[in-house]
């Protein structure tokens, strides 16, 4: 069960145990992990009553679309959600793990989780893996101290922003935000802006596509609008379904039972202890 133990924060600062080994590996030719541009558009913005998060739904495996409708907005706590870009397994595992830690923390303290708690747990985990956990996250939520929006980079640095975008479609989405964002947006304006930014990513970036997911978090309430917009429907679906040509003929049907192969050993010894 040790694999599933929570990683407790290390005592007494950075542990330099593996630095020598890393040096040796780099001299032998191992390249340190570089920041990968990832196929995703994820955004978040703060509006007058809380936070709105948005994401596209395409998961890519190189040039192939692996999942046309995946969920990139992950649950962290009833009042905190997190969008993830990067390696899907990394974002899933990291958000799952921190969500678990937050739940235990809520039991022990009897209080609602705070966004900065999730932020610190995530960034310490990512920093301790020195960027090898390829997860770029947009974390947003509303707690007792108000609405918060943060971005977290794979190496463990964070920003606190009123509007944020991450992923390969981040430039397309940021262009929309920079021109149209203002403080004090209403809920409908905010959702419309987020959807527009994600659509910009979907249409202008190859790594993003399919549908728009939106999550609106306000004090005491959250709305997860899965597939809020479907700007990429299948254009043509034949009503008749598929019909195969009649050239295939059944010539013969024969069922051959498999013969059981049993070896009989004469005079074998009984199993000895």
């Amino acid at each position, binding site marked *: 069960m040790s694999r599933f133990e929570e990683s407790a924060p290390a005592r007494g600062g950075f542990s330099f145990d593996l630095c020598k080994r890393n040096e040796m590996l780099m001299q032998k030719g191992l390249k340190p992990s570089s920041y990968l541009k990832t196929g995703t558009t994820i955004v978040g913005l703060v509006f007058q009553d809380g936070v709105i998060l948005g994401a596209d739904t395409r998961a890519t495996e190189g040039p192939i679309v692996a999942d046309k409708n995946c969920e990139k907005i992950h649950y962290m706590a009833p009042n905190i959600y997190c969008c993830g870009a990067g390696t899907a397994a990394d974002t899933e595992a990291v958000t799952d793990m921190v969500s678990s830690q937050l739940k235990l923390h809520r*039991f022990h303290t009897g209080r609602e989780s705070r966004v900065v708690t999730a932020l610190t747990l995530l960034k310490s985990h990512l920093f301790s893996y020195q960027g090898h956990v390829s997860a770029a996250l947009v974390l947003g939520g509303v707690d007792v101290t108000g609405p918060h929006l943060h971005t977290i980079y794979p190496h463990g640095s964070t920003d606190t922003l009123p509007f944020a975008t991450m992923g390969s479609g981040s430039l397309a989405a940021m262009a929309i935000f920079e021109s149209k964002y203002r403080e004090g947006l209403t809920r409908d304006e905010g959702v419309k802006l987020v959807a527009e930014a994600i659509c910009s990513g979907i249409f202008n970036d190859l790594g993003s596509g399919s549908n728009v997911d939106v999550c609106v978090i306000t004090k005491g309430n959250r709305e997860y609008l899965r597939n809020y917009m479907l700007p990429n429907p299948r254009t043509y679906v034949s009503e008749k379904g598929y019909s195969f040509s009649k050239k295939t003929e059944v010539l013969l049907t024969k069922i051959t039972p498999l013969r059981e192969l049993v070896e009989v050993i004469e005079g074998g010894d009984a199993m000895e202890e």
Partner: protein
Amino acid sequence: MGDSQYSFSLTTFSPSGKLVQIEHALTAVGSGQTSLGIKASNGVVIATEKKLPSILVDEASVQKIQTLTPNIGVVYSGMGPDSRVLVRKSRKQAEQYYRLYKEPIPVTQLVRETATVMQEFTQSGGVRPFGVSLLVAGYDDKGPQLYQVDPSGSYFSWKASAMGKNVSNAKTFLEKRYTEEMELDDAVHTAILTLKEGFEGQISGKNIEIGMIGNDRIFKVLSPSEVEDYLQEAE
């Protein structure tokens, strides 16, 4: 008298086949404040006395009944600090189970894992057994359930049970009053009356604690004013 020579080491059996430390742990439980639990047809209720050492203690800061998961709660008799450790471990185990199987932990599984922890402390070096018995109340797909876990690590499923100081009187009272068709509200009243039996002084919402779980499968600890309401109904 030969037993006393074997009573210092936890991991040594006495000639009569007992582990004397566990017997002593049960004595510690038996001198703790009374707690009890009743399984009704549509839920479970657990209750305990909350006698504080002095009137100067802020009773709102003391909570004996704890939530382990949204649908499982626990109360103890015996040493409070020991129960805190067990509650913490149980919560963590429940969370680990959820992370592994993506299913809320069934009550029997959680009880079994807690009992395993308690047993480990009876067979390790340098530790002592826990001085608490726990009453675990939960509601899952198998319906309402009530379990008692002892310091030795053995656990039993009960329809109604009591532990602590007044255990024999309480159990006799429960045996007379318990019916299989009892509903949750009746169970709460019966629990209050059972606690009243052995209560020294005036019973009120501030010196008892009641936790219950019904068909909604959400365990909640009643606030002092809610307890007062039930107390008045039970009069």
